[in-house]
């Protein structure tokens, strides 16, 4: 399943006062949203309401991924890293900060790192299936993703074998050299 770009509603940009002042989402509404996500073949959906935000993500076969978060826990937007986020003290916006932090907790996994700086794509074209998904078994020569650098599509091979259990970056996200992409269990 391909992962289209973020929804037009891509929260965060919207002025907060523009929404009706409902303070929370009930379970029925949540189910409705999940249905919307599934029925329309969407991979991700994000909705913000006054003081509340929900983000749903479907990783094909993965049961993972529906987490609600407070408005200010903004995951780095895919295209433009924010000018001054504050990941521990006052460092600059690094494309890889989040993934590196996530991967650091997975010390038992083999990590496939990005060999170049560029834009990460999970599938060979926007309409094609992803190269690998959670549960895929890969060999060293299996192509796991594409990283676009200077308009060139570079196919990245796993260079190790195992089962894909973690995917640290999202489709279309910029990645830097050495950034964790996938976690494998051998």
């Amino acid at each position, binding site marked *: 399943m391909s992962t289209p770009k973020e929804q037009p509603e891509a929260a965060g940009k919207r002025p907060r006062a523009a929404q009706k002042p409902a303070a929370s989402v009930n379970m029925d509404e949540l189910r409705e949203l999940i249905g919307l996500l599934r029925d329309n073949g969407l991979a991700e959906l994000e909705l913000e309401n006054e003081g509340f935000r929900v983000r749903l993500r479907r990783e094909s076969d993965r049961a993972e991924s529906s987490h609600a978060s407070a408005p200010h826990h903004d995951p780095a937007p895919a295209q433009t*890293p924010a000018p001054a986020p504050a990941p521990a003290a006052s460092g*600059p*916006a690094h*494309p890889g900060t989040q993934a590196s932090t996530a991967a650091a907790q997975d010390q038992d996994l083999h990590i496939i790192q990005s060999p170049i*700086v*560029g834009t990460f794509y999970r599938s060979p074209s926007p309409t094609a299936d992803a190269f690998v998904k959670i549960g895929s078994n890969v060999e060293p020569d299996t192509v796991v993703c594409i990283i676009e*650098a*200077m308009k060139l599509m570079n196919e990245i091979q796993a260079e190790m074998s195992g089962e894909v259990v973690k995917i640290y970056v999202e489709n279309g996200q910029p990645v830097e*050299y*050495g950034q964790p992409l996938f976690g494998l269990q051998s």
Partner: protein
Amino acid sequence: MAFNPRKFKKILIANRGEIACRIIWTCKEMGIKTVAVHSDVDRDSLHVRFADEAACIGPAPSAQSYLNIPAIISTAEIFNVDAIHPGYGFLAESAYFAEICEACNIKFIGPSANVIRLMGDKIEARRAMHEAGLPIVPGSPGEVTSEEEALGLAREIGYPIIVKASAGGGGRGMRIVRSEGELGKALDTASTEAAAAFNDGSVYIEKYIEQPRHIEIQVLADEFGECIHLGERECSIQRRHQKLMEEAPSTVLTPEQRKTMGDAAVAACKKLGYSSAGTCEFLLDKHGAFYFMEMNTRIQVEHPVTEMVTLADIVRNQIRIAEGEPLNYNQDDLLIVGHAIECRINAENPETFAPSPGTITAFNLPGGPGVRVDTFVYSGYQVTPFYDSLIAKLIVHARTRELAIARMKRALDVMVVEGIKTTIPLHQKIMDDPRFRAGDIGTDFMEYFLARNGKKAVSA
């Protein structure tokens, strides 16, 4: 105000170290966002910390990171920058890189690729600048085959001359000739020596420059053909062609000479169609004659001494020129106030000059009146062995040279860098040297200095 289509919002700095920080400081003052690129071992460098955005572009070896053009352009595209500042070294004088930036619609902050290419070929550069009116060291066009030919040429050039081996190096096959009577014998011995040393007896002759000084002229040129100079820098204190210390103004240049050299450099740059900041390097002999050596088409390490005495921000000018702005002052506005000295603080053993990487365990920056430090390190920083050894530049400015020397001495005294060896003790000794204090320096200074002080030169 005219509409300017090239106002920069964001600049990528394709460099590391103190110069990357230096560029960030000016960008901050101009309200321009910065993107740092870095190798994986430079993650903790200050240029990464103080840029607005940063990306790791490769492993430690420069070829895979700071010289990795696809990675740098890719980062520029991801972060959507308007321009790239190349700093010095790495890709700063790569015509190829400048062309790629242009092809990708990213402004390269520097002169055009054609000018970079021309000045990059040192022989072609001398020919072009000679045509553009700059004097070059006169000599034979090629090998000298007979004594008659040599005598004729030497008469034209004027004594003293030097006979050099075509295949030469290391002083072998070299003879200085002060009068016509010595020439025949010198040709023979130089040729024999060259044949023995290099298996090639061919020799050529050149004007011998007595007690040469390395004097360079800083120029600024916009894209509309306007060009000015910012006076000279004296860079004679070098070891193996590596500058150790620089000052401005020079102790020997009279205002008339400054004008002559400056005007010549400006005229040549105008003929060349030069734009951006640049530096013409000259040899100045003891009689006041000067000869063009080469042109650096980039910002230079020692640019701060010029900034101190002229109050110009050279990086800011580079950016404004690249934005398509005209120079907003002319030659008559040039002001040279006081005297500035820069000491390059390298992570090196001050006696053997061997690199000294390691972790900086304590770091104290000097401050107070007239002191500037350009650096990217701090206490706890690990100096890696992968790049050049420059960790900081200590610059002072005072009303006179004597006061500047006193100021530099007290600044060096309180500049503490522990955990690694640095060239601080060497600079302290140079500040006390009688020849240096008298301003009696030339490119042979370090040879004299190390011979005079021997091994004990810098026992700190």
